[in-house]
């Protein structure tokens, strides 16, 4: 058993940490999210230069040969700065889709584009009626000639406005919620028939509603086997959950540390409010929740390569922890900062909003409790 990080991983963490400290304080982030584009291309280029975009990919595809743990380290540090640039969408999700579902050709062509910072991706999976069921799809892809024609609608596609390419889940056969018949496609966002409505989200990101109207793609747009995509989708979203949990760890750490710091300095009734026992206990509970979250994040990241059942259970368990710990730590941080916690000016509110939305992304506590229950023999 070993929970220590390699020298390379420690160096990686240090370099991301330095970047966040130098370039991503709350004012810098505010500028980015209020800019017209809502993300910083300069930051994206800097991620490429620091090797963050290639870190988790095998060397033969232009990567650095890292693994899930590298991704975890990067996402945790990103969480401390509430980074908005679409690392989760592009490197973690799209990268994993291609790496685990793509043909040799697709990997050779597409992964180097991600690793080099040339292409940004978004993943269009959710539909209004589908909630958190990844197989509940009304978007259809029908065979036409060598390729497919896609028709449908995708909701709240995070990072949609920035994307060059979309990973799209669609039904090639079967009924609305059948396990069989789910396929995964790569679609150029600029393709004819793709239309988008862009908007900001409450936690500082951007998203799109995307309509596909008779969008033609070639046979090479298909990732994996036609109709057998659900296994791939579930695996990739479990990897996404593991990365999101890491981001959550970073955010919870900031919320807890900031609250402790604030309570040491804020004075009422002639003493720092951190001297009041009722607040001490609340902060100790925040600390414990954060530690539990970190443990669960290690756990899920270490189990991503195990059997499907083990991996799914691990991901759902960690996501439940994220929802619960995130809510407790986020709400407590606001409460203990008092009125200041309610302001847009202080960083705490922004962390709270992001952490709150993490519960919704990829399925909330209720959804993952049910998923865990269904797998627990």
């Amino acid at each position: 058993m070993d929970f220590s990080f390699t020298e390379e991983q420690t160096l990686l963490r240090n370099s991301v940490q330095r970047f966040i400290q130098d370039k991503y304080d709350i004012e810098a982030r505010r500028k980015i999210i209020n800019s017209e584009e809502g993300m910083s291309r300069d930051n994206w280029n800097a991620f490429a230069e620091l090797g963050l975009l290639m870190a988790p990919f095998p060397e033969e595809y232009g990567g650095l040969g890292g693994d899930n743990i590298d991704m975890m380290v990067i996402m945790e540090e990103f969480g401390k700065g509430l980074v908005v640039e679409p690392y989760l969408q592009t490197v973690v999700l799209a990268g994993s889709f291609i790496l685990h579902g793509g043909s040799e050709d697709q990997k050779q062509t597409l992964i180097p584009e991600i690793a080099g910072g040339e292409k940004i991706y978004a993943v269009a999976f959710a539909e209004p009626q589908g909630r958190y069921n990844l197989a509940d799809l009304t978007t259809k892809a029908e065979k036409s000639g060598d390729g497919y024609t896609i028709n449908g609608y995708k909701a709240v596609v995070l990072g949609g406005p920035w994307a060059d390419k979309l990973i799209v889940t669609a039904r090639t056969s079967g009924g609305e919620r059948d396990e069989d018949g789910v396929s995964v496609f790569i679609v150029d966002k600029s393709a004819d028939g793709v239309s988008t409505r862009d908007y900001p989200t409450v936690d500082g990101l951007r998203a799109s509603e995307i309509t596909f109207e008779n969008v033609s793609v070639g046979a090479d747009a298909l990732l994996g086997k036609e109709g057998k995509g659900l296994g791939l989708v579930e695996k990739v979203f479990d990897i996404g959950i593991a990365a999101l949990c890491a981001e959550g760890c970073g955010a919870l750490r900031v919320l807890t540390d900031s609250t402790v710091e604030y309570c040491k300095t804020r004075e009422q009734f002639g003493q720092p409010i951190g001297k009041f026992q009722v607040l001490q206990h609340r902060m100790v509970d925040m600390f414990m929740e954060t530690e539990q979250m970190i443990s669960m994040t290690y756990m899920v990241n270490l189990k991503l390569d195990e059997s499907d059942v083990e991996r799914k259970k691990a991901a759902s368990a960690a996501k439940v922890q994220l929802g619960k710990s995130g809510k407790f730590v986020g709400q407590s941080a606001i409460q203990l900062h008092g009125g200041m916690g309610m302001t847009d000016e202080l960083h705490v509110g922004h962390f709270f909003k992001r952490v709150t939305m993490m519960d919704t992304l990829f399925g909330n506590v209720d959804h993952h409790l049910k998923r865990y229950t269904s797998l627990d023999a």
Partner: protein
Amino acid sequence: MDIDYAPEDEAFRAEVRAFIAENKPKIVADKRARGEELTREDYLAWHKACYKKGWAAPKWPVEHGGTGWTVTQKYIWGEECAKGEVIPPLPFGMSMLAPVIMAYGSDAQKAEVLPKILSGDVWWCQGYSEPGSGSDLASLKTKAVREGDHYIVNGQKTWTTLAQHADWIFCLVRTDPDVKKQMGISFLLIDMKTPGITVNPIITLEGGHEVNEVFLDNVKVPVENRVGNENEGWTYAKFLLSHERSGIAGVASSKRSIEKLKTIARTEFSNGVSLWDDADFRSNISDISIQLTALEYTELRTLASESAGKGPGPEASLLKVRGTEIGQRIDELVVEATGYYSMPFRGGPATDSNVFPVGPEYADGVAGTYFNDRKTSIFGGSNEIQRNIMAKAVLGL
């Protein structure tokens, strides 16, 4: 013991319902449901309609323009207003300042202040909190120095709700720095148009502008604008705070939120089954409904003892703590029920107002409401402070 409504109460309820249906400002209700910012006129529309009918101030004594309703009638009124989603008259004048003026104000103040609160012509805001004085309110530093017939006031107030619309502010100020902190405070009424007053917005985390900083720089206030005696302001402040807490249970508004939650639950589907038919989610709704019932009966008991002549006591803290906890829990469930469409943000640089809303109409602003309502366990004496009050004043600890 008897919890049934008499026939005349039911008749009264019907009358109230009809009045609300006829006079409710529909546009305002829609804006509010979407979490949009309201104008001064929006806030006052319902108040003005009630004033015309003579129903603006049911809780006031008849001599000052109250309705003379029984406790039950007042309760029915509150319930129906919440169901009708009207915006009650702003509490700062109506429920907070007015009782203080009635109890401690001069005759001139009663004649000047009360009718304009009743009619909605003067908008009051509350100058209590300061950057260094939140929970420890009595440590406030804004000072007022007597110069002839005036006080010269210097200092800063903060978290001043809707000060951007206010005509007047009631302020706690320090008039004697050399005594125990509670003993040197006075209660002043200040015209917001007086030179030296600056109002700066504080944008809250969900993006709204509700609260403000108010700076007072050599503001000249006539001595006759002091309520009661010099250096006895803390007594009046505490009296006001007890009124601020009664009515904070928010039972009727939580009931309305639960109805909204149920509507969403019936509309949102997971695996082809509505959340309404999902045993886990339904159990969450039942749980919060039961908590609300306990609070409702606690409030009814408080009302009954109030009508028996007892003022709102420290038990009001119970209503505040449970009322805000329940309201916040409902907000959580609404966000959970809404799923991915709780994420879009209306407002912000990339928004074209013609494009919104995306997703179902009920999804509008649900996350913003959840974020914004975190304030309820902080303001009006944080829930930690309320528990301290109960520990000391109720349990004698």
